[in-house]
């Protein structure tokens, strides 16, 4: 099943970077999750950071305690032990993430930076719908929200989730980043770039296409909301997020819950095996939607 070609590389004297695949795939991501979780369980002295990413991962060591070459030996052995991904169970959470598409804040930012976009005559949604072969932006929003996403990596800034939709390759949406990055993106913008959707945790520069805004935070410095009690950051790699299109009224209702410190994400604990997903992504997605909203 594996057409992946793994490369082990030094990142100076403290990091080992492992590229599982040049291209993004659910398979590469699951492999990374499996390896990094096994490595974590081993609790090896001298390992400072284990950072899984989309189709690669990175480990930081104290080389005085654990030599990078010994780490690579260890990682190769772990990779060999998870070769088939069959006996791997990923513990995860299913999460409902509301998004208000075409909201006034991201729309204003979309219009402000038209001169940095591939197509200054359309909005980001209209442009993305067209290049992905959808007849209207409504159909495109439907495709964005119909199937859930695997949180495939956290990073860039604290809490930003890269999300990869669980659909067959031919249905995967792909869009370019802005021609020149924007200097401003509203906090909680729902965006898309390459094969990934994201939510921007904080206001800042950015290059992804902007489609809408999430009413609930994914990063909260003050840690007042129940979902943030243990960490400023809500998403975890391996989570499954479903982006749900909401109205202005629901947006405002959730905002007032957030401001009152009462908002809690709708979520379910959930375990799955990579082969469940890879065998039939659409069937898996349907099952997940049922579990999240009906069970």
């Amino acid at each position, binding site marked *: 099943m594996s057409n992946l070609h793994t490369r082990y590389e030094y990142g100076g004297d403290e990091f080992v970077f492992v590229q599982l695949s040049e*291209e993004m795939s659910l398979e590469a991501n699951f492999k990374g999750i499996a390896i990094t979780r096994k490595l974590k369980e081993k609790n090896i002295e001298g390992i400072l*950071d284990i950072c899984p990413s989309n189709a690669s991962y990175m480990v930081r060591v104290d080389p005085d305690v654990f030599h990078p070459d010994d780490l690579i030996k260890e990682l190769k052995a772990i990779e060999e032990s998870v070769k088939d991904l069959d006996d791997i169970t990923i513990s995860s959470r299913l999460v409902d993430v509301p998004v208000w598409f075409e909201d006034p804040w991201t729309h204003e930012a979309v219009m402000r930076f038209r001169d940095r976009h591939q197509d200054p005559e359309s909005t980001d949604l209209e442009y993305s719908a067209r290049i992905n072969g959808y007849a209207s932006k409504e159909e495109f929003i439907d495709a964005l929200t119909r199937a859930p996403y695997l949180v495939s990596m956290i*990073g860039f800034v604290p809490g930003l989730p890269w999300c990869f939709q669980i659909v067959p390759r031919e249905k995967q949406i792909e869009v370019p980043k802005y021609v020149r990055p924007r200097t401003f993106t509203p906090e909680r913008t729902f965006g898309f*770039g*390459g094969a990934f959707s994201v939510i921007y945790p904080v206001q800042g520069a950015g290059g992804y296409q902007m489609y809408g805004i999430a009413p609930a935070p994914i990063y909260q410095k003050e840690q007042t909301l129940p979902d943030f009690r243990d960490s400023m950051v809500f998403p975890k790699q391996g989570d499954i997020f479903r982006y749900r299109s909401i109205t202005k009224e629901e947006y405002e209702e959730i905002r007032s819950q957030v401001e009152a410190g009462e908002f809690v994400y709708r979520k379910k604990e959930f375990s799955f095996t990579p082969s469940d997903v890879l065998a039939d992504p659409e069937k898996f997605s349907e099952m997940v939607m049922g579990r999240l909203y009906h069970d």
Partner: protein
Amino acid sequence: MIKVIKPGLQTTVQDNGRIGLYEIGMPPSGAMDKYAFTVANLLVGNHPNAAVLEITYLGPELLFERGMRISLTGGQIPPKINGVSVPMWETLEVKAGDVLSFDFVQMGARTYLAVEGGIDVPLVMNSRSTYTLIGIGGFEGRALAAGDEVPIGEMKVKDVKAGTRISPELIPVYSKSHEIRVVVGLCSYRLTEESLQTFLEIEWTVTPEANRIGYRHKGERLRFVEREQPFGAGSNPSNVTDLGYPIGSIQVPDGVEPIVLLHDAVTGGGYATIATVISSDLNRMAQIKTNEKVHFVAVTLEQALQARREVQEKLKRIADAV
């Protein structure tokens, strides 16, 4: 307490950093020049992870509200107490009411001020380091401002006499052109053979965009190997499927202006990384100023580890001496 009369350009509270949080996208922050940071703490008898002030380019003006021992290490931003020059890399005694100020920066870029007991700010995820991008750690998550009152902690572990100094050969010499050692790798396969040579051969100039997040360099354009875009990688030849960025890793967006990512950098993204600055030279990188010249020199992992041991031996000699 230390009262801030003038804040300087960017004076922040830093310790060893917030380590182990890459997986949530949190960079380590922490002192940029760990050698100078460590020596500063040694000279006042502090715990090795006590927080200090990192002073960049333009020194602050600070009023000591009580007497204490202090030390100043790192780049030469010449310090003065009550207008009189005082030495760096030495344990100094200040009295209540003394004012510390600085002349224009000469060599290096960052000076470290350690005070007996360390700077006392709340621990955020096990560190006192400032991470200004999201406003956490340090003094209210930001650089110091005029009027701030900076509290002093109790992280002193040892009494060090005023006048204690370190032997001159252990004091780094800073210049205006720098050889920075790197381990080539990560996604260097994306660069053409010729461009990798160019990267290692030419002299790069540090641009004004050089801060705790990263240092951007001007020089020649680098080229990437032509390819069919891998799914998810993005359309520019310098793009890869988004991945993690080690501290010290070097990326070249669109082949223009290599960026060395430093302690407050983004933790990941979609640009090919081509090499990583070795840990001992991150300290030296921290002392490079805008407009200065950098030459990247390729070394092996074993050479990098050897350089790391040399730094550790120097620090051990200093620790034994004080």
